[in-house]
């Protein structure tokens, strides 16, 4: 009985499919028969009429008021050169050759600067350009990239004219970058988070410890090569007892249990 069940639906389905096209095609063929008597002249006239109608419609739509922006196709932002930005000019004037690139995208200016001079540059922006507020500090991982694996971003805010500016540096793997906690205190936890999740070391940081994962955790979760399904951390919270890289193996535990018996 159970074998019959799966076979019956496929048998029924094709029957239904065959019926449907018959019904659909029947009226079309009748229409075609009616249309046949049209002469060539009439056809030409009809085509001309349709063309005129289309042209009129096109004209109408052109004359009509422009559509609201939410009815139109979205217009994504484009990259522009921002080397004329006042802060880029100021930084270039102070420390020549330090602005490697300046980009404006969606109204946000990003200045690329060398990683080894980041503290000097941040201090310049804070003290001279009045960027008193560090909004965010974060990193992005590009494992395949030749010039350095990580991007580190500093996103600053100026109260005077509510302007925001982003600094971008490239950091290679296993190369430390200087901490900016001396410049903005708020960078402390942000750098700890980047260290924890990306493994970028910030030198001269007052207490560079893991913050979201635990001490002894093996790996840096936001790196692209960290598996999304996670890793077996086992009991790695006790690094002295269980070395990083996993807790006690299941087999060993079984053996121990067997030995006890």
């Amino acid at each position, binding site marked *: 009985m159970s074998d019959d069940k799966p076979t019956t639906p496929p048998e029924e389905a094709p029957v239904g499919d065959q019926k449907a096209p018959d019904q659909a095609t029947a009226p079309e063929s009748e229409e075609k028969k009616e249309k046949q008597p049209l002469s060539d002249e009439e056809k030409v006239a009809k085509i001309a009429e349709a063309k005129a109608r289309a042209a009129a419609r096109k004209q109408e739509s052109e004359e009509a008021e422009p559509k609201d922006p*939410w009815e139109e196709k979205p217009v*994504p*932002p484009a990259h522009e050169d921002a080397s004329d930005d006042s802060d880029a000019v100021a930084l270039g004037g102070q420390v020549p050759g330090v602005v490697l690139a300046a980009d404006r995208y969606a109204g946000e200016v990003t200045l690329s600067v060398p990683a080894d001079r980041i503290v000097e540059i941040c201090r310049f922006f804070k003290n001279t350009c009045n960027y008193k*507020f560090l909004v965010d500090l974060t990193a992005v991982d590009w494992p395949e990239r030749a010039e350095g694996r990580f991007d580190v971003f500093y996103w600053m805010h100026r109260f005077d004219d509510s302007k925001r500016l982003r600094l971008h540096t490239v950091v290679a793997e296993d190369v430390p970058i200087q901490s900016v906690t001396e410049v903005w205190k708020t960078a402390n*936890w942000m750098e700890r*988070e980047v260290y924890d999740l990306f493994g970028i070391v910030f030198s001269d940081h007052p207490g560079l410890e893991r913050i979201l994962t635990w001490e002894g955790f093996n790996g840096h979760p936001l790196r692209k090569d960290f598996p999304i399904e996670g890793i077996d951390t086992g009991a790695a919270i006790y690094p002295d007892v269980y070395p990083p890289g996993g807790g006690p193996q299941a087999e060993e535990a079984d053996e121990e249990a067997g030995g006890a018996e």
Partner: protein
Amino acid sequence: MTDPERSLFDVEEMEINFGPQHPATHGVLRVKIKLDGEKIMEAKPIIGYLHRGTEKLFETMDFPQCIPHTDRMDYVAAATNNQGFCVAMEKLLGITIPPRAAYIRMILAELQRLASHLVWLATHAIDIGAITPFFYTFRERDAILDLFEEYCGARLTLNTMKIGGVPFELPDGWLDRCSELVDGFNSHIDEYENLLTENRIWKQRTIGIGVVSAEEAIEWGLTGPPLRGSGVQWDIRKIFPYDRYDEIDFKIPIGKTGDTYDRYLVRMQEMRQSVRILRQCLDRLPDGPYMARVPKVLRAKDAGMVYGSVEAPKGELGYFIVTTEKATAPYRCRVRPPSFINLQMLPAMVEGHLVADLVAVIGTLDIVLGEIDR
């Protein structure tokens, strides 16, 4: 019996853990404190107990699929989390949302701000010892959650905004019920203020506790009510208006001294301002579509990065989205969580105070651990 070496005034340090399982930590915050008697010598917040890797999950999902995950960060203010992500995405894709959608969003966001502040007030007061406000505030919060439930079917994890607008039209009669709630809300705020504002015990427990100067607040990156309590007039809704906040008339309440009492007053005033915004939104709600015409598959055009932020009840909530060319999912989505950065200031605020004040300061920072740990 008495040891001549040890007098009554000796410093004897004791290290204890406050949390992670402690009702006054508002979740799973653990604070390692060094005490001399009742006085806090050193405090070190330890976080991460609720880390779920939300930022990692974002990278594996299409843009619209990220929105339900934003709900789970600041779970008492899901609507503003949705809004932040949508605002950032619309900036990336160049979408302009219709005015009706913007107004519905503002209504939802302000209702959410009220609900979030009510939770803050209830728990903050109960931490300090005033139990009564809890029953009053949760009465109104429930009414707000009922409105949410009617609109989108959920009470906490709302998932109530879409990239390009909002997912639904308002149900019949919803505006009337919302209007009724908004009209009566100021009298409810008066009720809470009657219980607390001039209460002697409340004042003793909050005035002069956890003082933050304006310079310190900026240095530590505080945002939201903790920054405004220190007298800095800063609100994302005013300086980078998103949706249609530029059409709305409202004020940014600020404090003077930057203590716990000031932050309390700022939040109470903010609730009144939210009521004002809601009133204007309800009166002016325009007709029209509630969704912009967006492609079925949302795809970034170039490789690029945007940062979009909103004024969440806790502070500036920002989403930093990095995409590759023609991507349908974020390459990286960083969340700037206001609670995380505000909590960083806790040690500086409590050192030298009593243990009981630590509870007051945690309450006044208004943290949500779901957002801190992500």
